[in-house]
């Protein structure tokens, strides 16, 4: 066994700290924020929002039916898909995949695109109630073949909107009709607004 002297130990610690410092610096250089912007993973079924929400103009809330009721917008359960797809395009292998999963009682495991850290308690319900349209945060989903994270979804990005810098004009008009070029917060900016 190789014996390690005290000095070697200290050097080792110093060296590892140094390496760690540069490594963190390097990572931050390449990825300036913790954002996952641009993330567009392949899904188990290539569901097209362009086809459903764009071409066929199905309302967002038809499928994401809890966005105005709960913190979570929720991904629709399989029976919602089958509301239409028991008759529509039943020859598609993907629809058959859904029908099979439904018959077997096995849910589809979708890949999560928009994700906030566990300590952030964002609520869809209040934003929908305030009149913030889905596109403000999710981008033009109706034009997306595969869903992509358009907005950075970082805390700074949230704050810009709550502070009035990027607030959608229609929301601003609703809550602060007399406010021109808002200087102060237009929505709560306390830590515990989002963090419990």
């Amino acid at each position, binding site marked *: 066994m190789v014996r390690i002297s005290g000095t070697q130990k200290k050097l080792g610690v110093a060296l590892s700290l140094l390496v760690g410092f540069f490594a963190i610096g390097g990572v931050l250089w390449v990825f300036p924020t913790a954002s996952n912007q641009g993330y567009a993973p392949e899904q188990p079924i290539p569901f097209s929002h362009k086809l459903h929400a764009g071409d066929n103009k199905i309302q967002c809330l038809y499928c994401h039916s809890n966005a105005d009721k709960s913190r979570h917008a929720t991904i629709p359960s399989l029976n919602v898909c089958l509301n239409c797809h028991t008759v529509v395009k039943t020859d598609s292998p993907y629809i058959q995949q859904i029908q099979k999963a439904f018959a077997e009682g096995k849910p589809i495991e*979708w890949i999560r695109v928009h994700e906030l850290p566990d300590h952030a*308690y964002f609520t869809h319900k209040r934003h929908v109630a305030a009149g913030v349209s889905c596109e403000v945060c999710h981008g033009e989903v109706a034009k997306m073949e595969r869903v992509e994270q358009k907005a950075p979804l970082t805390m700074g990005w949230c704050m810009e909107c709550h502070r009035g810098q990027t607030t959608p004009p229609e929301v601003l008009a609703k809550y602060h009709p007399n406010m021109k070029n808002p200087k102060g917060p237009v929505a709560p900016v306390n*830590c515990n607004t989002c963090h419990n």
Partner: protein
Amino acid sequence: MDNQHEELGKTAPHATQLANTSSQSDVDFVPPRHWIGPEELQGSYWKDPQVQEKRSQEFYEKPVEFIDQLDRSAQGGVARRDFLTIMGASMAMASFACARRPVHKIIPYVVKPEEITPGVPNWYASTCQECAQACGVLVKNREGRPIKLEGNPDHPVNRGSLCSRGQASVLGLYDPDRLKSPVSRNRLDGTRKDVDWNAVDASIQAQLKKIAGQGGRVKVLSGEIQGESTRRLIKEFLSAFSGGEHIEFEPLALEEIPAAQSLSYGNSVVPRYRFDEAQYVLSLGSDFLGNGTSPLEATKMWSERRKLAGQNPAQAQLGKLVCFESMMTLTGANADQRYPVRPGDELKVAMAIAHDLIVKQKRSRFAQDATVLAALQSYSPEVVASELGLSGGAESIRKVASELWENQGKSIVVAGSVQTKTAVGVSLQVAANLLNSALENEGKTVDGSMNYSYQRSSFAALSRLAEEMKAGKVDALIVYRSNPVYAAPKGLLGLTDGFKRVPLVIVVSEHEDETAALADYVLPDHHFLENWGDAHPNQAIYSLQQPTLAPIHSSRAFQDSFLVWRKAGLAVSGLASKALDWHDYLQNNWKETVYQQVGASGSFDQFWNGTLRAGVVDVFAAKGISGNKMSPRAFRTASLGGVPKYSALSADSLYLALYAKTSLYDGRNANNAWLQELPDSISSVTWDNYLNLSPALAKKLDFNDDDVVEMISDDRTVQLPVHIQPGLHPQLVSVAVGYGRTAVGRVGDHTGVDVFPLVQMASGAKGAVPSLVFAGQKVNLRKTGKFYKLALTQWHTATENRPIINDITLAEYRKNPAHAAHTDPHLRLETVPSMWSKHEYKGYRWGMAIDLTSCTGCSACMIACQAENNIPVVGRDQVRVSRQMHWIKIDRYYSGSVDNPNVIFQPMLCQHCENAPCETVCPVLATVHDDEGLNVQVYNRCVGTRYCQNNCPYKVRRFNFFDHWKAYEGTANLVWNPDVTVRTRGIMEKCTFCVQRIRDAKDQAKDVGDRVKDGMLKTACQQTCPADAIVFGNLNDPESRVSKMKESPQAFRVLEVLNTLPAVSYMTKVRNQAESAHSGHGSGHAE
């Protein structure tokens, strides 16, 4: 006085300088000195250099050496410094690993249940089955799993409150040590194997069929059954056997109450005590607030008479509570006057009071009754007082007697608890009955018509069963929710031998417990949150219990087992012969009984669905019977015949009192870590039981805290650590039962010492009903020289002798209510200039008021907070080094003499100061003020400097030294509240005023375009409080309850002189005492 001032100067020089500006002339009231432990009263404790050094270090217990030890053992020899070295190298790798986000999945339902919206809780009304009290609960479900229980506000028993055991039951549901599938045991070689239900059922069915065919005897032994439906099902099932019998037994049931009621009044009931109607309560060893017949209902009613809010101070009225008791109980701690006595002395006190009233004063309807006079003759107050050494002598007894007489018809004499189950337990109850009848309380405050109908426990039946088992007269025994091998006096009954002689033993239990080790089959039972059921707590009330989640394990309702087994062709009677399953049975039984009794106008389905939603039906209210139509029952003086003549106890012997803690009770919840870590209200010890001794006895025997002592009672010996407890009689030693289990799970096994073997059987007269004796045994103590450190929390966050609490007498309060708010006459807020500009609160400003007069210290709030806010359990060793994580704690202080102190409880939580000392020292702004007055802690910013903890004068901040959440294994992880972040190692946390509940309330108010109204929003601690001592609300609304309480003369804020401006106000404890609470005991002020 001056000395105290000087002492304060040492700890808070800033405060003293400022305070000097206050004029001495308005100092005409000296608050009592409050102390934590008896050592504080010895000489100049706080000036002792050693003490000062200990108090000045960051932790009361120095953790370094201790934790190094722990670290080495826990992490396989890696100590702190090596750990840091390794950390350095791994940092580089760790930072690369963070660059890629983990892929998370979203898995929707296949078919979403209509009533479930992910993220929105569902509430189900049910009934708690943790004890026989049958409180209504509302179960908060998220995505199909219960995460929190709250009292059902519409339930007449608990009216919205819930005790610590009820709050903790949700952790019991997710206990990873629960029995997961049926077990078949070979009793010859002790081997066991998991089997499936079909195999078990086939085998049991065949055996039961054979027994039924041979006219065999089948016995069901159960704990007390709350509901009539289960009881009926058992009866009907047993009708298939010629020798069927159902025995109910609870080891801690107060069987002497119905026994004495039967003797005195001719009906075997447990009366309902109307504490809300009683101005004066005399407790003779009854812990009605902690472990009585219905503690939550009693606390609710009793605390109604302990509210000064809204009363004109000059004419303020307060109920009075006087206690004669051995062990210091929750009730005794709340008494306005308490007298420590030995076990068994309670009877003498009762008889002496009756003697003074009836024999001396010739009062009451019994003044001419020869039988009564004869029975009381030997108990003169002088003789009793001198034997008991009561402070105040016979005068104290005469005073109680005259006060009782003044409150005729509006007083209660209540007796009996586990620690009064002596050989004269029944006589004590008879004496209490005599007093209640003599004082005309019977039929007014003591309601014999509204009895608690669940009390069916019978030790006599159990001992008869034991005899039959030993004689081989039992062919099959089914044990359900009962653990006689642990909790019944096995040595006396020979139960272990008895079990061996029963050919078929089936144990139905949630755990593979001590009794299960003697069974052929151990069948996992549903937790009550997984099962249907009902309860019938008193004659008016039927309460429903419904499943709130699908069974987690392969368990089955005990009741369903009967309905499966009957299919073997057993000739069961009634509903049991045709019910499809337990749910069907329950519905049909209700259709035949409760539905008929209520006489509801709609269909049964309407009635059933309505009751299911409400959780409870009040038969009297449904029939339009309002108020109580009690009528006094005639006292049978002949019942006094069984009361022994006065005889003195030995003045040299030591007497034992076994008692039950409000948390662990009889040990059934021993595997519940929340309850194990809940500090005892009085002693503040966690995780263990211990020998309570008075300071005088400890001095005499030269025992110190944590000495391990051997206690010898007859031929039995146990070894326990010593805890010196002020306020005990010097001839008393007391120990809690419910510890030292051996087969309950990883948390409860071998935690503490099992003292059930010290329980004895009463050696009464021939043919007398056998009963259990928990108290009054003579014991001897012997020092072993060993040492065991109890995990005691009382000193951990002590406030360096700063005056942080106040209590005054009712007389003083009436005279000058302003004195109530003075924790220290030198320290006045109005004299303190502020360095800071005030915060502006445009919308809400949240605040809390806590009424110390009605707070009983029951600690239910601590567990409610733990469940709501994901507070982890840290374990015994971490508590020993003051790392417990409770956000709210119940601080207990004493005042007065060490032999019989006054007790005061102070719930202490984050004070949400306006000028918060923690905020100014945080280098990373992890703790900041929000615009609604909350002091918020931002976990993701915190780097763990712990400066805030050091600078907090209230010691309410908790630091995560470890990833405590990792201790939650398997199913236990389901208990987390998804609305609250689970904290990791290295960050600080503290009370948030339940910010997630505030957000929910605002969300609901916004939905209807409104603001949060007063009373709409309750914090978890407030919601569960049985005494309604905690009020939370908007301080910006002058009409809110909390604003009004804040402005009352009773209100004070802790350490006001520091100018922290807390958002929490305390209502000073007012004791219903005429003379000064702290006169006579000069110990008050540091010498």
